């Protein structure tokens, strides 16, 4: 009896909570969808973007006299590894195709020698 009562309350809480969540989200999304809000966010993002860019340029400039690697340096090195990996990948692909060709050739030779033996 007690368990059923608790289950009932929990179901009401769940249904009501889900409905409230949905309605709150609808209101927030509606508010965000207003052109003036979107334009304002866009303006803020331009300021944020230029601040990040300036900071990045400052760090790049400082990295020379202070002799420390930046994320761009690490990125350039890693990109070389990825290029080398791609070349190895191509070579591996060729080896796989060659192996398949050799297998096919072996099959053909075996089949033809079997036929010759039969004749």
């Amino acid at each position, binding site marked *: 009896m007690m368990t059923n009562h*608790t289950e009932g309350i*929990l*179901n009401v*809480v*769940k249904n009501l*909570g*889900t409905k409230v*969540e949905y309605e*709150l*989200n609808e209101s*927030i*999304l509606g508010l*965000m*969808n*207003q*052109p003036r809000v*979107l*334009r304002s966010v*866009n303006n803020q*993002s*331009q300021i*944020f*973007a*230029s601040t*990040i*860019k300036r900071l*990045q340029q400052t760090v790049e400039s400082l990295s020379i006299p202070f002799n420390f690697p930046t*994320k761009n340096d*690490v*990125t350039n090195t*890693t*990109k070389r590894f*990825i290029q080398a*990996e*791609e070349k190895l*990948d191509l070579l591996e*692909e060729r080896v*796989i195709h060659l192996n*398949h060709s050799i297998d096919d050739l072996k099959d053909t030779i075996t089949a033809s020698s079997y036929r010759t033996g039969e004749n």
Partner: protein
Amino acid sequence: MNKWTGFLKAITTTEDPMVGMTPRNPVWKKNKATLWHYPPKEKKYNIPIFMIYSLINQPFILDLGPKYSLIEALTNSGYDVYLLDFGIPSYEDKDLTMDDYILRYIKKGVQRALLHSKAEEISLLGFCMGGTFAAIYASIAEEPIKNLILSVAPVDFSTFSVLENGIDLLREGEIHLEPLLDAWGLIPARSMKSGIRLVSAPIYYSHYLSLLSHADDEEKNLKWRRYNHWAKSHIPFPAATLKQMMNDLGKDNKLIKGQLIIGNKQAKLDNIHANLLAVGATYDRLVPKEQILPITDHVSSIDKTFHMLKGGHGSLAKDGKAPSYLTNWLSIRSNPIL
């Protein structure tokens, strides 16, 4: 264990639950990407399935745990399953574009899966943005694609169900996101999570209410923890891909118009002749039916089906079952071994 104890235990456990437990082997690796092969228990079909997941989350939603795994269900049904896991991108991947993902990862991955399986044809199964990529790849592919299954994959971006005014302002050139994306290079995982949350459900607590309703059931709690772990496991996103998607797909809607260029090739949907199954979900706020259904009018496939699933955006992936509409459709198109 009563509900409150179970609830508190589930939300206070800091250890991540185990996920991705179906046996698998790496077939090919490049950069952070891995092509995984999940062998079938008993092979019953000649055509393997190649899965492409979205770039926003990690693909372990497809293999949450025993009995809750779409991959496990498909291998139990007798399919060879391949999953292309793009991995977690780092700053050096910031310049990766949609072309790179399609030509250097998906195309190569499909070629490797064909070589590995020795199959003559393959089925593509793409989820969400992975489905959009699958459709783009299928429209330029030289590889033999027999079946194309797109789960909640947007292809027509003429309508949006959320922030429609924002898209209009973007199209009119009043909103410029490029400077921010260029400055970031790689969008951090936290920002991706916040961004997705913002356009889907800015306030989100109903999952705790679901947990409370079954908190005295250990197995359901574990499933909840696994799903919750996935829901929080967003990954960084290369800004170059996002810019290309925003401009070519979101702004100019080039895919449905047949104007999208991928690696010097025109990705026209009418190049697709594979059997097509497009799946939408009734309660999907992110990808409504209007963004999915139009693909059926643009492909050249003779055999094409649209299925509306009762559920939300991640239903096919997260339910952990191979639903009958999928298995029935796929089984007769996958060359059963007699």
